[in-house]
């Protein structure tokens, strides 16, 4: 909402600078985006260089047919010689003159110049040069009573400071200059002028009822409909002062009729519409819902399909305006228009909003109506617009008016307890202060003991409850007076939950391992499933899809973390980041039959590409492989004292021989492994990538919980190494399980420290070397103890896996 200061000053006596006012507004709830300057620049006495001039003599330019050579009076008896390219004036006309040294609104600086051999000392300005319109056909001709030599700005207000305000949706009353004036008066104590809504006397014979029939079919969507007729108007450009105001408010001047409706809207906040009476069939108007399949071409030239949820203003045959949003091209005011039907109405806010969203069409009008306007403004807007049409368009107000208002507003009163003010704000606002603030905001109040009975003005429909009044009080009273305190009786404990702590441990374990955290968009391109080679019936193709994505690349929500991370890997590789090791703590989203919302699974996932340690002068980097990934997953589990086992994996996006499911308590909880070469290709990655993805719920649930102390210190352990030869297909995990079972209870540790395949063990065989640790918490083990356990282990290995001790 742009509010020119000069306009504002018509209604409220401000005695502070625009900057000070902006501060005061900001601290009382009206956000000021910025303070702009429109029109002529003010610096360095620039305004003195623009004056009202009078063409004393208009003659031919000696060297150019298309130019004229003029003598122009510029005040104090001074006459300047000016070369002009326009033709639309005659001797005696008054016009806007820019004297040498003047700077135009667009920043151009004018100097005395020689034009085709003749000196020109100044310029007669067009409206577009002065920033009053986007194009103009010649210089600006001012009325005959314009005083020659006066500064132009003293005659036309078009060098102005403009407050650009952001009005919160609860305050549609502030979407108007008068509304802001009222607010300014309340927060500064300045005097407020009455509303500029003086009416004008009707003239002539026939009344409006004889000339047009107006009805309201849907009183719910149209609580009030007011209309007047202005006959015999002359549609023409607006006077300069009006154009200047329209421009300063950020709108575009059209013609006097349209500019007046916009001016009234800007002044009072009530959007108006002007119909060309001659183009209304019937003539009759009816506020009704659109019929199925009805269409309208709006004044922006677009044909729009309507439906039964939309309110239209229809003439005898068709919709001729979308109520509160935009008029139809069919009844638009044109240069030939003579009789105008002026509409000021009140429309249902939520319905206007629904309609504008359905149509994708918003206007200055609809952005006001959508917030719910004060129906009491309707007659005021009609009065103000009628007067201006009579004064500026040579029109005549036809006697009578329509004002269809089935259920007039009832008075809204609120009971306000002083004690509630104190308990909510944490500070005592004195009763007298409360009453004074309410009164300045146009709320009437009278005291009833410790309470106030408060009557709400019609333009403050946002104030419905005690708490709304408290807000009004505190915003004027001043938040700076509220002391900072902390809640005094906190009786609950704060902090992270065990789950949240575990999540942090996971993140820290991963960073400790050298992996960087990424945060990727959760929406991705729908072809991710194909790129990951998911089967047609893979449930992970059942994605949550966006109805209105920004682009196809961000149109579905991921069911796997992998595609997001692979895209980040690709981006990093393209940026020549050599080693890309990233993880993310995120969610995947799965549709569930019969459920409205998605199943959101917290997941920790990562991609390793290149080397974890990086190359240095000390050693070459080691490329990551399946075992790097497994080591990382082991570190993650270890960070939460969890454990897992593995199972061979058939994920279509992984290397079938170098990948595994992560299994917790017999259930698959994720995967790890090398990414399938075809998948890498599909993501434009030309280096091997190891990926993992684990469900956090299962991971954290696998935790062993509180560690119970075990005495590892009192009695020494005995260590033994064995190497056994087994079939090449025998899994290391299987060997360790047999060893652990056979070695119990003395065997407390078994770890693989070497593997070998080759000539020494023969084809189809492999050797695995294990370091065994024997220990008892009760005593020091004897050689016999250890030898016995070792023999049992070897026997079991031989019996169950056909293993032989390697000689």
């Amino acid at each position, binding site marked *: 909402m742009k509010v020119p200061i000069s306009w504002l000053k018509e209604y409220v006596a401000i005695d502070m600078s625009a900057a000070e006012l902006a501060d005061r507004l900001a601290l009382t709830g009206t956000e000021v985006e910025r303070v702009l300057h429109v029109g002529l620049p003010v610096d360095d006495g620039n305004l003195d260089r623009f004056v009202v001039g009078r063409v004393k003599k208009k003659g031919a330019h000696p060297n150019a047919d298309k130019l004229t050579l003029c003598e122009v009076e510029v005040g104090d008896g001074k006459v300047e010689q000016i070369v002009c390219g326009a033709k639309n004036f005659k001797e005696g006309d008054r016009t806007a003159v820019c004297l040498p040294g003047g700077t135009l609104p667009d920043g151009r600086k004018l100097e005395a110049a020689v034009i085709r051999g003749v000196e020109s000392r100044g310029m007669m300005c067009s409206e577009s040069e002065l920033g009053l319109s986007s194009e103009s056909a010649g210089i600006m001709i001012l009325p005959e009573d314009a005083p020659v030599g006066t500064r132009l700005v003293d005659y036309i207000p078009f060098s102005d400071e403009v407050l650009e305000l952001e009005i919160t949706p609860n305050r549609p009353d502030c979407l108007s200059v008068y509304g802001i004036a009222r607010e300014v008066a309340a927060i500064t104590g300045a005097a407020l002028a009455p509303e500029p809504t003086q009416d004008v006397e009707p003239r002539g014979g026939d009344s409006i009822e004889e000339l047009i029939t107006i009805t309201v079919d849907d009183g719910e969507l149209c609580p009030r409909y007011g209309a007047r007729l202005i006959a015999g108007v002359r549609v023409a450009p607006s006077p300069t002062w009006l154009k200047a105001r329209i421009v300063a408010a950020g709108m575009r001047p059209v013609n006097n009729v349209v500019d007046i409706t916009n001016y009234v809207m800007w002044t009072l906040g009530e959007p108006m519409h002007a119909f060309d009476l001659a183009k209304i069939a019937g003539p009759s108007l009816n506020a009704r819902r659109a019929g199925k399949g009805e269409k309208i071409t709006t004044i922006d030239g677009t044909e729009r399909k309507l439906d039964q949820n939309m309110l239209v203003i229809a003439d005898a045959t068709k919709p001729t305006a979308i109520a509160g949003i935009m008029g139809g091209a069919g009844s638009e005011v044109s240069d030939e228009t003579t009789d105008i039907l002026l509409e000021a109405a009140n429309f249902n806010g*939520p319905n206007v909003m629904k309609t504008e969203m359905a149509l994708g069409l918003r206007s200055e009008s609809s952005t006001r109506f959508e917030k719910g306007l004060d129906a009491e403004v309707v007659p005021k807007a009609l009065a103000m617009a009628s007067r201006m049409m009579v004064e500026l368009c040579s029109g005549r107000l036809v006697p009578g008016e329509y004002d269809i208002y089935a259920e007039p507003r009832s008075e809204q009163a609120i009971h306000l307890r002083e004690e509630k003010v104190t308990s*909510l704000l944490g500070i005592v606002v004195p009763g007298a202060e409360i009453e004074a603030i309410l009164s300045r905001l146009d709320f009437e109040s009278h005291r009833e003991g410790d309470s106030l009975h408060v009557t709400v003005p019609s333009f403050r429909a946002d104030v419905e409850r005690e708490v709304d009044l408290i*807000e009004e009080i505190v915003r004027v009273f001043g938040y700076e007076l509220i002391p900072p*305190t902390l809640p005094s009786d906190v009786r609950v404990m704060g902090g992270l939950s065990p789950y949240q702590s575990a999540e942090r441990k996971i993140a820290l374990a991963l960073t400790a391992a050298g992996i*960087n*955290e990424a945060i990727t968009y959760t929406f991705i391109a729908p072809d991710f499933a194909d790129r990951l080679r998911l089967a047609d019936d893979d449930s992970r193709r059942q994605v949550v899809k966006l109805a209105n994505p920004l682009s196809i690349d961000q149109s579905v929500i991921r069911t796997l973390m992998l595609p997001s991370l692979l895209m980040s890997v690709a981006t990093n590789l393209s940026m020549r980041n050599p080693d890309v090791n990233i993880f993310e703590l995120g969610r995947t989203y799965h549709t569930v039959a019969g459920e409205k919302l998605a199943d959101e699974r917290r997941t920790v996932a990562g991609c390793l590409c290149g080397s974890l340690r990086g190359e240095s002068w000390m050693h070459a980097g080691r490329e990551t492989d399946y075992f790097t990934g497994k080591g990382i997953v082991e570190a993650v589990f270890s960070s939460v004292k969890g454990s897992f086992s593995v199972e061979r994996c058939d994920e279509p996006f992984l290397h079938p021989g170098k990948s595994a499911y992560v299994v917790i308590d017999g259930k698959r909880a994720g995967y790890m492994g090398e990414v399938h070469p075809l998948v890498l290709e599909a993501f434009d990655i030309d280096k091997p990538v190891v990926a993992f993805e684990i469900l956090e719920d299962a991971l954290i649930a696998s935790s062993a919980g509180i560690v119970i102390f075990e005495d590892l210190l009192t009695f020494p352990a005995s260590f033994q190494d064995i190497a056994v030869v087994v079939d090449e297909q025998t899994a290391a995990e299987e060997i360790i399980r047999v060893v652990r079972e056979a070695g119990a209870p003395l065997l407390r540790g078994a770890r693989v420290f070497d593997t070998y395949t080759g000539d020494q063990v023969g084809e189809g065989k492999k050797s695995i070397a294990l370091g065994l640790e024997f220990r008892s918490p009760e005593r020091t083990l004897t050689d016999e103890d250890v030898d016995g356990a070792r023999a049992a282990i070897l026997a079991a290995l031989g019996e169950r896996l056909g293993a032989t001790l390697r000689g």
Partner: protein
Amino acid sequence: MSAMKKYKDLVEELRSYEGLASMFAEAAAGIDAAGDSEAIEAARVAHLGRKSKLSQLLRSIPELPNEEKPVVGKYGNKARAALEQALADRKKEIEGVQLEHRLATEQVDITLPGEPFPRGHLHIINQTLWEIEDIFAGLGYRIAEGPEVESDYYNFTALNTPEGHPARSSHDTFFVDGKEDVLLRTHTSPVQIRLMEKEEPPIYAIMPGRVYRRDSDATHTPMFHQIEGLAIDEHITMADLKGTLETFMRAIFGADRVIRLRPHFFPFTEPSVEMDVSCMICGGAGCRSCKNSGWLEILGAGMVDPNVFGFVDYDPDLVQGFAFGMGVERIAMLKHGMTDLRMFYDNDLRFIKQF
């Protein structure tokens, strides 16, 4: 000091037996002359070994005349102890010199980089989130979370933003295809509702998470992070809100920050405010970051609207409280000086590893 000098007095004593003094002098000179550990060992064998003159003399005591026995025993053993000490001293001396020599020659280029131990970096958004979480944990707040694919009811209606409410149009909501009332949450506030539905006051919680709005440029990304705060109890006041926010701002932006509250509008709080903090870049004097105002807009807050309590069956006459919400990216940007929001989600490691 040489052994001969050191044991000068002993040598005088040794003169009381024929030959002992010269024997000692010879041995001491041999020890003094030993230049490395092998020479030391050779000197030990020569002068203290089984075949040394001194050992032979001591072994021959039983055969000596009775009056000589005590003299030889006393002075011979004295000489032996002294030579053993001299040998140990010399050995230590030589080792010292050797060590010094070794250390003097073992010099590395101390300016070469150290062995690269891998260290990953947490994303700066997460670092910022953790910092905020820890501050509020210290103030007694828990951390609550909720779904990102959310129903219209929790995202809007129960937050006092019914259908047709003008505040809805500013949210640029992503809707889920095929489900009219399902959307990607536009803020973390729906978690408030879910929390209050589930639990009775007192509630002190913050609610971090990803949120989504249909907007993309240097200052908007379609996904970003918010953190929401909620305190509901019997006597929570606007003054408590102000104090809590001030404490938080000082913890995160420095002890000399001041805040101010400006009235604002949110459907789910009443009264509603926006909070500014004095600019930490210029200290409040005015700079580009604060658009010369000296203040930076940080977050929105207010007292929970009684209508919201209505949706979760709380009695607004028995409990009241405040809520606040902020963009995590904004905090991170102000703290670390980034200007383009999109960098957070490019995940370029050159960016991530800075923090």
